[in-house]
């Protein structure tokens, strides 16, 4: 009686992190930076969703009709009419029986196709909209994980079409058909079916509210379990070394207890909906019996009576997929809210500059490398991490380290210098130009930025390095790697520059990853290196070694590094502590 229909997830295959990207990211030629106009599901998409809903409605209605007409047929047959009189009903039953799987198949194809088309559009659009927000609006740490969240949220939102919109449309279509048929047979029966449909809608809303209520708590609890588990599983030896095994396990037990509580709370929604829908089916059947009983034998024939009594049961079956839709709706709504909050941000820079760099009068490599900052102030909108007013001058080839505790504005300063964030006041000159008047792309080309999570694309080593400057030759790439301290590592690679790295490829250690990021900076030949805690996640010995190679290989280039650790700065010409009042002219920690 119950037909559990579980649908295949929209993104079959999932977003496997292990999967290598098919296209090498950098083999594509540079296309003009035209982002497509943001468009969600267009008119075509809406029509396709409606089509799918209609097809699903026919499938669901066929299921209901199959049960109901079978009842009619059996009762009619028991009246022993001429067999020919039964033929119409037999054909009808057979048709409904065939129609259900066929239309279901058709609906699934249609709904998944439109969802995947929509997913493709949304992915392209979301990516294009994220470009101007990168990196300043993606937070300070864990940008890659944040972006993974965007990928998952996009899938959830699109998934809702298949798991929510189409089932709800199908249910509505089937309910309307059922009401019409029932009303034609007996007006009071029509009323009963209509009432059932309305109460079902109310149950759906109630269950959805219950699910949504605990959605956030549950997500947070899941994230905490994942964090603690990864921490403990990844540091087993370190925890054993200090005898903290017991404590580590108690963290997990605590996180699990929170998760169980949150999940238990969320399951109330589904439980209530599933239970109430069955009670509704019982109530519907009794109401239908009561409604038609006076007319049986007079206005309502016996076979029709059987058909009508069976109808609420068949409807209840059709409604049994709704709790799944309810949960998917709660999830996709939360995803949509997160996506909007992320994508609707204002870019942190106004790209109003028009001047281009004068390659003749600036440095030999064609770009300025002298920075002058006067009275500079900056702020992230809505956050308190301000910087300045600050004066700073960096000559060509100078290596400068900026330290200070978290929250004192180091990263803000770096973002302003890299032209990722507009200053709120003061002046910023690049060579002989006002940096803010320069065309944004040109100004940014002065800087190679390296943070503590340089991404390695699932592609060849060559492609990963060439993305910094596509015209680089193989010997130049190898030279850059050697300077970055990867000479021995590279020599061990059997496939040389064709070695596939990144997810699914050859694994690299944290130190190697930082060095590959450095090699990429060197390949770019950009005159100023901005380093944002590049060794924050490396152990001390490796960190020292990487910083050593870094200072050696960047002789002649300007380097500005921010670090919240006050050590490992031996190779730097100048160290500014932003937390001390004498940091610069009158700069102070904000």
């Amino acid at each position: 009686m119950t037909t559990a229909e579980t649908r295949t997830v929209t993104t079959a295959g999932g977003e496997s992190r292990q999967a290598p990207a098919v296209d090498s990211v950098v083999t594509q030629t540079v296309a003009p930076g035209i982002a497509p106009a943001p468009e969600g599901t267009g008119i075509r998409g809406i029509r396709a969703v409606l089509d799918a809903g209609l097809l699903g409605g026919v499938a669901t209605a066929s299921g209901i009709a199959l049960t109901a007409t079978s009842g009619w047929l059996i009762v009619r047959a028991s009246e022993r009419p001429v067999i020919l009189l039964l033929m119409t009903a037999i054909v009808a039953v057979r048709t409904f029986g065939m129609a259900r799987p066929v239309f279901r198949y058709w609906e699934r194809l249609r709904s998944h196709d439109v969802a995947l088309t929509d997913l493709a559009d949304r992915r392209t659009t979301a990516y294009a909209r994220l470009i101007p927000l990168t990196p300043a609006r993606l937070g300070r740490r864990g940008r890659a994980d944040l972006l993974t969240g965007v990928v998952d949220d996009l899938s959830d939102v699109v998934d809702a079409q298949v798991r929510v919109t189409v089932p709800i449309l199908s249910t509505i279509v089937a309910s309307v058909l059922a009401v019409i048929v029932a009303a034609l047979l007996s007006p009071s029966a029509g009323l009963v079916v209509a009432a059932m449909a309305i109460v079902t809608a109310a149950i759906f809303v109630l269950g959805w509210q219950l699910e949504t209520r605990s959605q956030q708590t549950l997500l947070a609890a899941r994230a905490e379990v994942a964090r603690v588990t990864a921490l403990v599983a990844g540091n087993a030896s370190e925890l054993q070394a200090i005898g903290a095994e017991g404590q580590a396990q108690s963290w997990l037990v605590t996180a699990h207890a929170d998760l169980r509580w949150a999940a238990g709370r969320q399951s109330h929604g589904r439980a209530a909906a599933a239970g109430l829908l069955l009670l509704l089916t019982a109530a519907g059947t009794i109401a239908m019996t009561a409604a038609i009983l006076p007319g049986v034998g007079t206005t309502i024939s016996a076979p029709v009576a059987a058909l009508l009594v069976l109808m609420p049961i068949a409807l209840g079956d059709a409604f049994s997929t709704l709790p799944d839709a309810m949960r998917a709706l709660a999830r996709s709504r939360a995803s949509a809210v997160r996506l909007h909050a992320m994508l609707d941000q204002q870019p942190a820079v106004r790209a109003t500059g028009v001047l281009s760099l004068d390659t003749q009068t600036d440095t030999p490599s064609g770009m300025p490398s002298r920075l002058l900052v006067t009275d500079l102030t900056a702020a992230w909108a809505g956050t308190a991490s301000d910087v300045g007013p600050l004066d700073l001058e960096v000559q060509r080839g100078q290596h400068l380290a900026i330290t200070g505790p978290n929250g004192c504005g180091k990263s803000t300063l770096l973002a302003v210098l890299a032209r990722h964030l507009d200053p709120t006041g003061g002046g910023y000159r690049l060579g002989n130009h006002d940096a803010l008047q320069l065309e944004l792309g040109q100004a940014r080309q002065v800087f190679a930025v390296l943070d503590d999570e340089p991404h390695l694309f699932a592609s060849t080593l060559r492609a990963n390095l060439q993305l910094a400057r596509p015209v680089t030759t193989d010997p130049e790439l190898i030279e850059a790697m050697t300077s970055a301290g990867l000479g021995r590592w590279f020599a061990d690679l059997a496939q040389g520059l064709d070695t596939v790295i990144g997810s699914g490829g050859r694994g690299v250690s944290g130190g190697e990853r930082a060095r590959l990021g450095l090699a990429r900076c060197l390949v770019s030949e950009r005159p100023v290196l901005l380093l944002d805690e590049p060794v924050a996640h490396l152990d001390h010995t490796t960190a020292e070694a990487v910083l050593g190679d870094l200072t050696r290989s960047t002789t002649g280039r300007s380097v500005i590094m921010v670090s919240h650790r006050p050590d490992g700065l031996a190779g730097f010409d100048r160290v500014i502590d932003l937390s001390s009042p004498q940091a610069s002219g009158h700069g102070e920690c904000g």
Partner: protein
Amino acid sequence: MRPFDPRLLTQVPATRRPVVALGAIGVVQGLATIGLAFALTNLVVAVVEGREVVTPGSWLVGLFTVRALLAVANELVGSWAGLRVSTVLRERLIAAWMERDADSRPEAGRAQALATQGMTSIEPYVARYLPALVSGAFLPLLAIGTLLLVDWPSALIVALTVPLLPVFAALIGHTTEKSTQRRWQSLSALSGHFLDVMRGLPTLSSYGRAEAQVETIATVSRRHRLATMQTLRLAFMSAAALELLATISVALVAVTVGIRLANGAMPLDTAMLAILLAPEAYWPIRRVGAEFHAAADGAVAIGDVINELAPTTPTVPTVTHSRPNTADRAFSPVQDAEMRDPRCSVVVEGVTYGYPGAATDVLSHLSLELPIGLTVVTGPSGAGKSTLLELLAGLRRPSAGTVTAPRSHLVTQRPFLASGTVRDNLTLGNDSTDDELWDMLREVGLEGMVAAFEQGLDTRLGDDGFGLSAGQRARLTLARAALSNAPMVLLDEPTAHLDEESAALAHHMIQRLAALRTVVAVTHRPELLTLADKHVQLVLHPTTALAEVSS
């Protein structure tokens, strides 16, 4: 991969209750469903034949109420059981790993994947797939059994056609296995592309190459859609085929029932019951197939975790107490066991260790006795100094020989610091009071720093908090070592990154520790060497000898 691995219940008894509870609900649901078919039949027949409807109506309401309660229980118990099984297994897994040496654990990445996503994927397996499996196994039998009592010809038809479903499903799966496999691979590659580009967006953006990817994403997404649709078409087609098969089978029952009914060879209630019962034999089997898709990862994870929890058969010889042969003993500083210092609680005898897969041993036939006091270990890099500490701490197991040592606290070169408060980090491995913490901070010279924090011991450290310098970290972890009550303290380069002043403070601290405990320090610092009660100098393999200078 098996649909259900009974080892789960035998090896992890805590999973029995949730699984049994779900199974019981499934069985009772099956009984209620069959009962409902009777109640519904009686109601319809009563309506049609104008008989009294209150009795069958009451039965129907009662049974539906039972089913509603069972549905509520199924959701609540399913959610509880899924989490219960997955969290118990995760806790067991972590506990098992915490008891093992480094070489008997999977490497960190694999361990993390199994403990996080792996265990999470068990939730839907238990919450949805297991109930489907129970009703898939139970309800068809129940339906056929009931039909047998009600109308044996219908029972025969159902019994003959029901097995076609799994056979048919297996047949479809078998013939499409290869192409499906191939498609899934290209699919995961295509969907992985977007994730890769998104995660790399900051990098692309900083080299001005982000815009160039917009077109690529559009192209790859289109290919992803086409490839997905090919895979899905096949999946939907086989689902539709199975449903059609079930429908035809039910129709077969209906036709024979109809003919007998029309011939007056069968009463109405029997006929009605037969056509209501017949579908109950088919849909549970189709549901198993439908749920399996979402549960496959969980089934694999359960297999993995059971293998991981199984008592390990050690690949290295167990720690033996046999004495090494005399030729090796020549290198040993200890000439005779009888001459052992009774204060020596730490004894290393003929220990050999090689990393798994490595051709040569890092340490070979090493024998040592370590008394209470400071032992300093020196030697060139690669001589196995850190490995020796790990062997003493029990983090690794020797390939041969024995290590007898008490509980220890090892400060590695990269000691564990959680992103928590100062207090959280200091009390890892001990349960000291705040007063004790402050005393210890004073001893290592960090009292001033922590006192200057607005939140004192509650100040957060790490990425989101205060960034410690290498020297501050070293002193903090040394303080933690001193707070532990382990009789043996092992220190790997404790003062390598410290300036002279901090190093002197730390050395003083180490000396004080060594007054009461066995302290073993690996160091390059000559100052620490002068404080040593015992000096162990390791040399590089293959000589693998041990020169010892006792001061």
